[in-house]
């Protein structure tokens, strides 16, 4: 290899001469200004895209609500809220759906929140990052994306049928009345709630983990340094700080569960039913008749989305209005529960100061 084979590097003159002369400064300014205009243009375009993204979805929501309200006009009456479903559209009501949805979601929350939060605390605070916990973590993330109908089929086999293993009926004497309990659970509120709990668990766990992760480690260190035990640290420091974030996750999961239809169709929830779970005939009966209250989880049920599903399939055109009224009721219930949840969250957030 001879030295000559390498061509000499071309020596380029500097593009901008050292800036003493007036002309070259102007050149820099000009190129800088044109860059600025372009960057401003990009900025504007981006702002418009974001504006469209926001208002586009708001307009779609507005149109949806407006059409529903238009169709439901005259059909969404107080009577509609307290009547049983009837074959005559004018008499049809949504009471079993409202009550069924209430019990179902209450039970779902009772089942999934302690389990979900517990699992999140274990994974975040106690477990070491072994291969097993990583594998569990991966599976939870995967489960959050499984279509709801799959949970419905699982729930049908596991809770409605219990794999065909159990087959017995119990009549338990409660003193003031009796509780009728069948195994397998059959097409009851508890089957539905267990299924929806499975469905919402991954979301609750992941959101709770995120919330725990957002609590600064210095808080834990300080608490431990002052002699608090791990349990005291988690209970008195970490959990209160993570609570608002956890609640957001729980709210989102429950809102999703309220609107679920597919898994309930899969477990065979009724479309037409003329009694409320436990046959509670009034709110006061929930307090005066504990036997009826105890029967609630083990009774047949329907939900608002199930009733809507039934009505949109009806031949009589008037039922489309009934369905629209039911959709409005569902939207209002979602709005109220989300609003309430945001209020609670804000309330707790105020208490947290680092």
């Amino acid at each position, binding site marked *: 290899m001879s030295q000559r084979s390498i061509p000499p590097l071309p020596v380029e003159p500097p593009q901008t001469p050292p800036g003493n002369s007036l002309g070259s400064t102007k050149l820099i300014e000009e190129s800088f200004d044109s860059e600025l205009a372009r960057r401003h243009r990009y900025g504007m375009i981006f702002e418009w895209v974001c504006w469209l993204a926001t208002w586009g979805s708001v307009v779609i929501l507005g149109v949806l609500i407006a059409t529903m309200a238009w169709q439901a006009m005259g059909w969404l009456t107080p009577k509609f809220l307290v009547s049983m*479903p*009837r*074959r005559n559209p004018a008499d049809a009501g949504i009471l079993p759906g409202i009550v069924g949805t209430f019990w179902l979601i209450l039970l779902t929350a009772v089942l999934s929140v302690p389990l979900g939060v517990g699992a999140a605390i274990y994974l975040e605070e106690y477990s070491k990052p072994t291969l097993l916990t990583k594998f569990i973590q991966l599976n939870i993330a995967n489960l959050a994306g499984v279509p709801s109908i799959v949970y419905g089929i699982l729930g049908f086999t596991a809770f*409605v*049928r219990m794999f*065909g293993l159990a087959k*017995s*009926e*119990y*009549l*338990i*004497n409660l003193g003031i009345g009796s509780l*009728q309990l*069948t195994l397998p659970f*059959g*097409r009851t509120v508890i089957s539905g709630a267990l299924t929806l709990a499975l469905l919402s668990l991954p979301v609750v766990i992941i959101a709770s983990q995120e919330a725990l992760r957002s609590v600064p480690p210095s808080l834990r260190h300080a608490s431990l340094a002052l002699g608090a035990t791990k349990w005291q640290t988690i209970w008195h420091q970490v959990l209160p700080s993570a609570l608002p974030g956890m609640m957001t996750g729980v709210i989102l999961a429950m809102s999703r569960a309220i609107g679920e239809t597919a898994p309930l*169709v899969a477990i*065979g*929830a*009724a*479309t*037409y*039913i*003329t*009694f409320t779970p436990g*046959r509670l005939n009034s709110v006061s009966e929930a307090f005066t008749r504990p036997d009826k209250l105890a029967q609630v989880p083990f009774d*047949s049920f329907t939900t608002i989305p199930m009733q809507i599903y*039934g009505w*949109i*399939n*009806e*031949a*009589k*055109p008037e039922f*489309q209005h009934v369905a629209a009224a039911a959709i409005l009721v569902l939207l209002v219930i979602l709005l109220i529960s989300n609003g309430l949840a945001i209020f609670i969250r804000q309330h707790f957030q105020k208490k947290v100061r680092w």
Partner: protein
Amino acid sequence: MPFLRPRYALVLIALFGTVFGSLSGCGKSVDKTIAVDGSSTVFPISMAVAEEFEGKFPDVKLTVAMSGTGGGFKKFIAEEIDVTGASRPITEKEAAECKAKGIDYVEFQVAIDGLTVVINPANTFAECMTVAELNKIWAADSKISKWSEVREGWPDEPIQLFGADTASGTFDYFTEVINGKAKSSRSDYTANSNDNILVQGVVDSKGALGYFGYAYYAENASKLKAVKISDGKNAVCVEPTPATIESGEYTPLSRPLFIYTTKAKLKRPEVAEFIKFLLSEKGDQLVEEVKYIKVPKSVKETMQQRLADALK
């Protein structure tokens, strides 16, 4: 405290499970319930009957679900429901499964449905069609896209097809009668399990042709036109009306609708009463109210006799 370590939790759970599992039963239930499920086509009948039945027997808890004819039979065979509606007779396979499980089922024909072929009211030429022409349009290998290809002299206009989705009993029945083989149909048409979507589709497009149950036509008769059907044997065009469907003149698209229960379930007085009510005069009234067609008198008598025999 070592016993509070998490690994002992498993032992605790197992212990709890055993205790709960050994909780023994304390007698049979007394609650009167009837669980109805099955075809969505039979659902309006079951629902109307359930509503009136509860008015007469308020202590009976009735639930009606719709998992489709096939889904209903699955639950029926698993003995999870008492009564199932079907828009076709029980298949040999399902009957064999019943036999294997010792289920002695009883079949009752409760109504007739006339599958109605509909066109847009603006369509003035295709008012009567033959089964052969329908086959030409709906056959699995059909390439027909214009009315002029169906019959000489019809306009050279595009045809839009609307029909039942492939999971429904309506689809099975229509394809079997028109194409000679159940589930054999062209697939490039608008299919939906919600018949109201199909109704809307035919109302909105001028060149539309669709089919669905008679009730959906009857409820929207002002916006649709029913095609008269000629079965090919005698070249008479028959319009689907309650009279022609009941008498059997409207062939071959009339189909019987059934309710199934078992002899064992009929031993329960509430189930027997429910079937009795369904087969009564009042039952017929309700069938007509939800725009289905009641069964002819001779069939009705056979059904009542069948119930009386099963109750013996």
